[in-house]
């Protein structure tokens, strides 16, 4: 079973890297890029579990390590 975790900075937390990417896109002539937020995608290969148990376990992984919930939010996809 695969789980994909998307980690993003929470709304309102300044993302200086995203802002630098936005500036670079504008410099390349891409108009209308009003905002860029940069995050992380983490793929997990999990030994056979049912989807519900995997969701619970990955949620605990996010809370304990994969995301810093002071500044980051996360979203889990189980596939």
């Amino acid at each position, binding site marked *: 079973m695969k789980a994909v975790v998307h980690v993003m900075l929470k709304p309102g*937390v*300044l993302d*200086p*890297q995203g802002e630098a990417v936005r500036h670079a896109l504008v410099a390349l002539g891409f108009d209308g890029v009003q905002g860029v937020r940069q995050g992380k995608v983490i793929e997990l290969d999990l030994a056979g579990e049912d989807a519900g148990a995997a969701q619970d376990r990955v949620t605990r992984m996010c809370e304990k*390590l994969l995301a810093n919930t*002071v500044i980051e939010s996360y979203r889990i996809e189980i596939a």
Partner: protein
Amino acid sequence: MRAAVIVFPGSNCDRDLAVAFRAAGIDPVMVWHKDTSLPEGIDVVGLPGGFSFGDYLRCGAIAARSPVCNAVVDHAARGGLVLGICNGFQVLVEAGLLPGALMRNTGLKFVCKPQVLTVASTDTPFTAAFDAGQTVTFPIAHHDGNYTADADTLARLEAEDRVAFRYRGTPNGSASDIAGIVSANRRVLGLMPHPERAIEPLHGGTDGAALFAALAGALTAA
């Protein structure tokens, strides 16, 4: 008086920190990150600067979950002293011993220079040897020193006099120019600047020596 200096893969200020402890009369012992307990009779734990675990995932994140960190958290819970410098500060926030988070510098650059700070609180075992409002110069060397916390946390830090050091002119975008904070019981200090790199004239300044002298004084008085 004994100090434990925790060594992670990628720590690079561990020996500097040990020298600074020894110069203040505190015997340092190096402790590997895989150890599950601290040696007997440790008065203060030092978490050194560096790039523990290559800054993978987030700075300090992996180190904060290493076996020895459970022992450090227990030490802090018993009211033990903990000093985290630079990467050590990042480990302390990731371990939940201090509030907030340290993000990428707003200028996106690694900043490496002498930095003027003001001593914002002298009511800690780490800063009691400074004068209130005194300016000191410690080196800074970091890419992720931009201190962030929610408004309630920032208000609480101010109300409880827990900001130990502030930047004079922010080098990294930190909220309220915060360079270092202490825990609610004032026994855990995390700061981005490097006092251990300012203890001998050959370092270019000796302002950091007072921090280690204060620690030694607090331990002698205890």
